[in-house]
C-alpha cells in the first residue's frame, strides 16, 4: 500500500511501488490532467511537481513520491487561477490542448525559480515539452505574461 500526498490530500493506493507515478495518478487516483505522451521522458506531457521540482511522472516510480508533496495540474492553484493559467487563457494558447498541462507544470517551476525569464531561459526550460500542434510561440508569450501577472500579484499582497 502506497501512501501519497497529492495536491495536499493523502491517498492510499494499492499499486506496485514500481508503478510510474503517471499511471498511479491516472489509473488509481483518477487524476487524468497529467498526460501520457511517450512514456520515456521525451515529451513532457506528464510533468508534475515533486517537492516543487518538475519531474516526468512517466519515469518516476510512485515509491519515490512517498513522503513528498506531489502537485498535479489539478492542484496547481486552488481556483485554477495560477498566473500561468490566467496567461494561457488570456493568450488563448491551446490548440488540441493535450500537451498544455505538462507545459504549464514545467513553466510553473521555471517561474518560481526565475521571476523574469528571458526567451533563452524559456527555451532552455521548456525544451523537454513537445507541442505537436506547434503552439510554442504563444507558450513563450504566455510565460512572459504570467511573469508580469505574478509580479503584479506579488506586489499587491
Amino acid at each position: 500500500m502506497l501512501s501519497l500526498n497529492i495536491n495536499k490530500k493523502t491517498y492510499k493506493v494499492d499499486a506496485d511501488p514500481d508503478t510510474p507515478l503517471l499511471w498511479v495518478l491516472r489509473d488509481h487516483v483518477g487524476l487524468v490532467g497529467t498526460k501520457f505522451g511517450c512514456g520515456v521522458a521525451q515529451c513532457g506531457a506528464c510533468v508534475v511537481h515533486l517537492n516543487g521540482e518538475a519531474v516526468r511522472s512517466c519515469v518516476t516510480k510512485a515509491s519515490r513520491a512517498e513522503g513528498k508533496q506531489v502537485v498535479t495540474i489539478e492542484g496547481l492553484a486552488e481556483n485554477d487561477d495560477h498566473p500561468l493559467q490566467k496567461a494561457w487563457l488570456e493568450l488563448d494558447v491551446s490548440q488540441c490542448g493535450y500537451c498544455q498541462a505538462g507545459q504549464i507544470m514545467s513553466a510553473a517551476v521555471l517561474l518560481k525559480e526565475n521571476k523574469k525569464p528571458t526567451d533563452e531561459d524559456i527555451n532552455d526550460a521548456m525544451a523537454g515539452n513537445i507541442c505537436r500542434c506547434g503552439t510554442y510561440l504563444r507558450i513563450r508569450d504566455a510565460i512572459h505574461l504570467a511573469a508580469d501577472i505574478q509580479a503584479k500579484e506579488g506586489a499587491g499582497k
Partner: protein
Amino acid sequence: MVFFGLCNIAAFLFVEEGIKPVYIPIKPDICMEATKTNFNRRAFLKASALAGGGLILHFSALAKLGFDDKSQLADAPAQWNEITGYIKITDDNVVKILCPNPEFGQNVMTSLPMMVAEELDVDWKKVVVEMGPHDNVKLGPQFTGGSMSVRMYWKPLREAGAAARNMLLQAAAQTWAVPVEELSTKAGVIYHEKTGRKGVYGDFASKAAAIPVPKGVKLKDVKNFNVVRHSQKNVEGAKIVSGKPLFGLDYKQEGMLIAMIHHPPAFGLKLKSFDASAALKMPGIKDIFSIKMFEDGFEQAGFDTRSFNTLLVVVGKTTWEVMNARKKLVAEWMPAGDTKDTMGGRVGKREVTVPGELETTATQLEKMKQHAAMPANQMRKDGDPETAFKNAAQIVERTYVAPFLAHNCMEPMNFFAHVTDEKALLAGPLQGPGWSEPTLSKILGLPADKIEIQMTRMGGGFGRRAYSHYQVEAALISKKMKAPIKLIYSREDDTTYGIYRPMYTATYRAALDANKNLIAFHVKGGGIPENAIHANRFPAGAIDNYLAEGWEIPSNITIGAFRAPRSNFNAAAEQSFLDELAEAMGKDPIDFRLELLARAKEKPVGKNNEYDADRYAGILKLVKEKSGWGKPEHSQYHRGVAAYFCHNSYAAHVVDMVIKDGQPYVERVFSAIDCGIVVNPDAATNMVQGAVVDGIGNSLYGGLTHKNGEVEQKNFHSYRIIRMHEAPKKVEVYFVQNDIDPSGLGEPPFPPVFGAVANALYKSTGKRYYQQPFTSPQSEVPTV
C-alpha cells in the same frame, strides 16, 4: 488539424473507382478540395418543444457536394448530404449550441457555434457549447477533415440561427400583440421600443417552438457581424488548463479494463504463434489472446485501412500492469507473403494484392529511381511539351524526395468500447464517426442504431484519426472480454503502426529558350504507394506547353491523409523548383510567380485550372509588402519565399533564416493568407502559427525509415519533433480582407512552409536541398 477529410474522400473515391488498390491519381481534380466544389443547399428546419419547456431547433440542409461528375454525387452515402445544427433555448434562458464536428485543436467547437450565435443574436459569453452526439441524420456529415468544417457549415448554421431568431420574434409579437416588424433584438433580448417592453429569449422559447419554421430567412450582411470576425476564446480553454477530463484517454467507466495490442514488429510480418504463459502470471492480467480484424473477404470501405489483420491482445486491470506483462509475452512472427484484401464499394467488390516484401528505405529509394525512369500515366497535357523540350536552349531538371511521415498526435491512439449482445457504446478520439459506424455494424452484427459513438476531444488528429481501426479493435476486444475496455496504444505502438504520409518523389523540368523565356514545364511524380501530383494546380494554366505524369509503387506500408495530403509534398518540391528556375532566368522569385499568375489570369492555358490567379497573386503581393521583401530587417537573415493553393485557400510565407550553432534556424516568418472571411481571427492566427511551426519541424527533422519492414524510429528520442528552442521568435500572420465565404484553414498554411524553408536554406548555405528532412545527411543529394 487535419484533417484531411476532403482528400480522404478523394482518396476514397479513387478506391471506390476500382482501378487500383489505393490512391489512384486517375482524376485528381475530383478531389473535393478543388475550387469547383460548392454546396447547393435546400433547407429543412424542424422545431419542437423541449421537454421541460423551451425550443429546440434542428436545422437540416441538404448540402449536395457539387462534383462535376454527377455519378459520384449519386453514389455518396445519403447521410453525408445532411447538414444540421442544433440550438436549444430553455425557459430559463439558457442558450445551448451543439457542435456537430469532432474537435482536434482546429477550434471548431468555438467557430461553428459562433456562426449560429451571430444570426441568433445572443450574447456569445452566455452561450453554452457542447459537443453533439454522433447522429449523421440530425447533425450532418460530422467529419473533421479536409479543412471543411467551417466551409461546410457556414450557411446552414447561420440559417439555423436566423430562423430561430425569427421564430422567437414572432412569439414575442404574439405575446405582446404588436407587429413583428416593430421588434428588434440585441444580445438575446427582444425589444419593443414603442411600448418600452423587453424580454429575454427564454421567455418566448416555448411559444416559439409551436411557430412554423420560416421558409427562407434573410442572413445578415457580413459587414454587420459582431460575433463572427471578432476573436472569441476557445470554449474549452479553461478546462484544458485545469486538467479536466476531455480526451479519449481520460475516459473512464466502472469496471473498465485496459487493453493493449502487440502488432507485428515489421510491415510484411504476421503472427505465427505466441506463448503467454509467463505474461498471464503477471499481476492484474485478465487474458491474452489474438483477434482477427476482418474475416476473409470482408469488404473494406475507404477508411477501413488497417496495417495488420491478426493482433495479439493483452487485457488487464491497469495500464502499467498491461505494459509490464507485454514484456513477458513471447510472440513469433512469420512473413505474411503477398496477401489479398477485398475492397468493397459501389463499383462492385474487388481484390487487391498487398505485396509481402520486407521493405528497406535504401531499396525504396532505389525503386523510386527506377520507376521515375519508366513511362507513367499522363495526368494533363497542354500544347506540345515534347517539341518544346527538344527545341529548348536550356533545360533545368531537378528531383525532389520526401520520406514517410508519422502523424505523432500527442495523444496516442485509444478508444473505449463496451459491447454487449444488444448494443455497443464507443467513446474516444476520431475524425469521422460516420465512416466507422457501418464497419462496426457489420463486424459486431449490430444495427447502426444500437451503436453509440461519443466523440471526445482529440489530442491532435492531422488526418490520422480518420482511420479508426483502433475503434474497431477496441470493440472486438470488448466483445470478446464481455466487459468495458479501453484500448491504449503506447507511443511505440502508435508510431510503428502505419497509416503514414506516403514517401514521395517528383522530377520537375523546365525548358527555356535562348532568351531565357519559359517555354515548357514537365512534372513527373511518384510515390510509395501513391503519387502526390495535382496536375491542375499552378503553374498549370500559366505555361503553353505543360505535361504532368504520375506513377505508383504498391507497398504493404499503410498510408493515410496527413495535413494537406499530397499538397504537403508538392508545395515543397514545386516551390523549390520555381525558386531555382527564377534564379536560372535571372528573375526575382516573387516577380517570377506574379508574371506566371498574370499570364494564367489573362490567357489561361487549358481547362480545369483549380486556382484563382488573382487571389493567388494577392497573397504574394501581401507577403511581399508585409515582409519588406528585398530588404530584410537584419543583414544576417536569409530569406525564402513560397506560396501554395489548396483546400480552396491561398497561403504564402516569407521565412527569415539564420545559422545558429551550425544549424538552420527560422527566426521569423511572415504569412499571408486568403481563406475568405476569417471567422475567429485570433484562433485563425494561432492555427497558422502552428502550421508554420509544424512545417518547419517536418521539413527540417521529420521522417520515418524502414529496415526489413521494421520502422526505425519508435519514439520521440529517434523521431524528431520540433521543440520550443527551434520554433521561430515571431510569426506575423496577415489575412486578406474580403467578403468571400470562408474556405479551409487547417491545412492550407502548412504545405508552403516546406518550400519557403528550402529556399531560405539555399540562401543560407549556398546549396540547394532536394531531400527531406533537410537536416539529414542525405539531403544534399546532387541531382541531374
